């Protein structure tokens, strides 16, 4: 409990660091929201008009004043207003987030459901032909860019079966589960494939390590069958690296998957952030980066708690 409190206490510090970085970084990119909004016509503005607009957006002040204003708003739960959407930043993010979260969860479920058994299988058939097969597929999975995979999937489905992935307006899970799944399944498979490949490789090597451990020999000396040895004695000991990897990958996916969202025409966080950057929508970029950093920290915390649940030797917060 103490540990949890201490961990949570570090969150604001990290968020301040991240916010300063993103605040400065986005302002170092040439151009500003006025130019982005008006395009070539921005050149027609008189200096006075430009100054008035800059004052309206608040970008006439030095960056630390802007930062101070922004942080003050943040303390009141106000992430600012998005220039492009004309809505509060938090509303824009929360509109997009359910899709991204669901997509990330689905991809992870697919990855673990496929990757772990494949890894265990390869480890227990070490250096046999079947192990080699699994390793080759995993290698392909890791090295195929996901736009290639996405296009292959769409092409095969439409050319071979005359089916097109469901596009159009996104329906949340709680409104139309079937339509929702038909929209998200293929993107999730696309993202899950490379993810599964990583899980396969890491669970294979972790299992190989564990299978040569002394307690596995002990279990066999007790008369445990091969199946018991693998699933009951070895696998729980091999899970730590799998959890570490899954946590990192899942954290990345929560930041949105720009390419896959683009190909399947999904309104996720990734495309939103890309647009925000292109439009110099400062408030939205800052807000969403902060939001992603926060999610990442939560995921890391959950990963650490999972370690404790998996291995009684690990005690958090001990120095």
């Amino acid at each position, binding site marked *: 409990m*103490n540990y949890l*409190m*201490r961990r949570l206490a570090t969150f604001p510090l990290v968020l301040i660091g991240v916010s300063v970085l993103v605040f400065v970084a986005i302002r170092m990119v040439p151009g500003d929201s006025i130019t982005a909004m008006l395009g070539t016509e921005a050149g027609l503005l008189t200096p006075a008009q430009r100054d008035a607009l800059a004052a309206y957006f608040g970008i006439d002040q030095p960056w630390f004043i802007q930062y101070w204003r922004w942080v003050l708003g943040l303390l009141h739960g106000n992430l600012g207003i998005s220039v492009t959407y004309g809505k509060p930043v938090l509303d824009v993010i929360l509109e997009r987030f359910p899709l991204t979260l669901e997509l990330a969860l689905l991809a992870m479920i697919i990855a673990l459901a496929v990757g772990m058994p494949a890894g265990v299988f390869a480890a227990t058939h070490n250096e046999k032909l079947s192990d080699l097969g699994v390793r080759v597929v995993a290698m392909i999975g890791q090295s195929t860019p996901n736009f290639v995979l996405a296009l292959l999937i769409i092409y095969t489905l439409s050319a071979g079966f005359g089916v097109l992935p469901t596009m159009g307006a996104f329906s949340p899970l709680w409104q139309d589960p079937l339509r929702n799944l038909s929209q998200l399944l293929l993107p999730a498979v696309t993202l899950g494939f490379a993810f599964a490949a990583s899980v396969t490789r890491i669970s294979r090597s972790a299992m190989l390590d564990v299978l040569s*451990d*002394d*307690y596995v*020999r*002990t*279990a*066999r*000396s*007790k*008369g*445990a*069958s*091969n199946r018991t040895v693998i699933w009951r*004695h070895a696998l*729980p*000991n091999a899970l730590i690296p799998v959890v570490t990897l899954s946590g990192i990958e899942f954290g990345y996916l929560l930041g949105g998957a720009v390419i896959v969202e683009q190909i399947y025409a999904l309104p996720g966080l990734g495309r939103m952030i890309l647009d925000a950057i292109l439009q110099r929508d400062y408030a939205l970029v800052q807000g969403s980066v902060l939001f992603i950093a926060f999610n990442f920290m939560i995921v890391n915390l959950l990963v650490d708690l999972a370690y404790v649940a*998996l*291995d*009684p*030797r690990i005690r958090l917060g001990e*120095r």
Partner: protein
Amino acid sequence: MMPLLSITDLRVGFGRNPEANEVVRGVGFDLAEGETLAIVGESGSGKSVTALSINRLVDYGGGRITGGSIKLRRADNSVFDLLTATEPQLTKIRGAEIGMIFQEPMTSLNPVLTIGTQIEESFRLHRGLTGRQATAAAKDALDRVRIPDAARRLEYTPNQLSGGMLQRVMIAMALACNPRLLIADEPTTALDVTVQAQIMALLAELKRETGMSMIFITHDIGLVAGIADKIMVMQGGEAVEQGELNQILDHPQHPYTQHLLHAVPHFASGRATRSDGRREQDKGTEPALKVDGLVVRFPVKSGFFGRASGAVHAVDGVDFDLMPGETLAIVGESGSGKSTTARAILGLVRSTRGTFSAGARKAAAEQSALPVQMVFQNPYASLNPRLSIASILAEPVIATGGRVNAQTRTKMAALLKRVGLPESSLERYPHEFSGGQRQRLCIARALMLNPSVVVLDEAVSALDVSVQARVLELLVELQREFGLAYLFISHDMAVVERIAHRIAVIYAGQIVEIGDATSVLSEPKHSYTKKLIAAVPTIDRRREHFELDTRQVPSLVRPLGFEPEPARWDEFGPDHRARVEA
């Protein structure tokens, strides 16, 4: 009737071509019901592989049985051929008829499962017990190996128990289904000597209770004198000699058996101590190292801000002095503070209090300003695998700001030659050397700076017994030649007896007895020293009845500001004193 186990001409090989790569070459023996066979040999002799072949676990370690036969007579007198058995048949034999315990109790239990779950598994597999019945059976099994408070211990995971306790759990697990044969593969090698005595006592007692047969594998021929009926000596994959216990111990025929019995250090209760270089009683000589009131404490932190709430008193008021040319052995069990003492002297851990003066008098003019050097326990881990021997030997010189010049190179070559390695070794890398050779390299490295004191922290413990003897000889020769003072830290009384002039016994961070080696070993005065010496296995103490003793070492964690009472000493003779016991 057929014996319980009959092995003939067993051959086991490894790798892609097992026939060409045999590590067991034609071993055979019979084991009768209730009999104990000790298989004795050094590492690589094939003793463990032989044992693992009996329950066919060798298959999982990459081994293949290439010839011979292993036959087990089952409880119903049918004969079971272990070589042709299928895997499902074997799982019914393992654990039920053949139990096994291993060398490393710390790693041989599954770290993520409670010990209760692991013991229950045996009952589930072979007795079909589940739920409450299995739990009750597991508790009985723990009671049987004399683990106090068994019901609560079932909930523990292995990291919460000491090595000795874990080995008892292993025994409880192996004996859960009353196997008729127990294979014990070096079950006490990783344990302290007093704990070893307890485990041996327990095994002897359980053997009497159940009438099981036992195969006991060890490198220590002294250890089996107390428990074995028959001995088989293995070397290079072959059984070079086997026979009745007394016949082997008293009239060994094979030269290797004779070597094991005579060339290897065996504990002789102070009769085999050194006669050279004894401490002179003149007070004129300055000690090479003087330690005064050494205290090392590690804070224990707790609470939200991690405030120190107490301290581990690892070393609590240790004083001694060490004369040039003298060996002081510090003996004690793991956690007693003997290694911490050494590390504090070298500055590897910060001492809380106390002074030491090293090199107050230099034994020779060319000795350096860094008079204390160290040789560590594990020669495999203490040489950087990426550095050539030349770089390794040059390291101490570079570290002290010296320059690697022709003189340094001459010294390297001379030292290598002195420790018995060819000069061509300089261009080679650590992995090209055996354990004994590596320890010689470590010794050469320690001597590069002409130290006056060398700390040897369990320096021969990781070596095979016959290699041990040769490294000890080398150490004694070097001591005479260079006038070195040794601080020899060890848990092994037999080794200590060969090299020490004086002995300090350390227990719970304090010296409890110190003095002349002969008189400490032959007439121990402190109760802990007596217990320690009584626990040392010897060939002389044949079929001795070990007493079970479950006393625990006191906790070293003390509240903040705690100071131990000043020590009071009883003097026994000119150089022998022991702490007065409360």
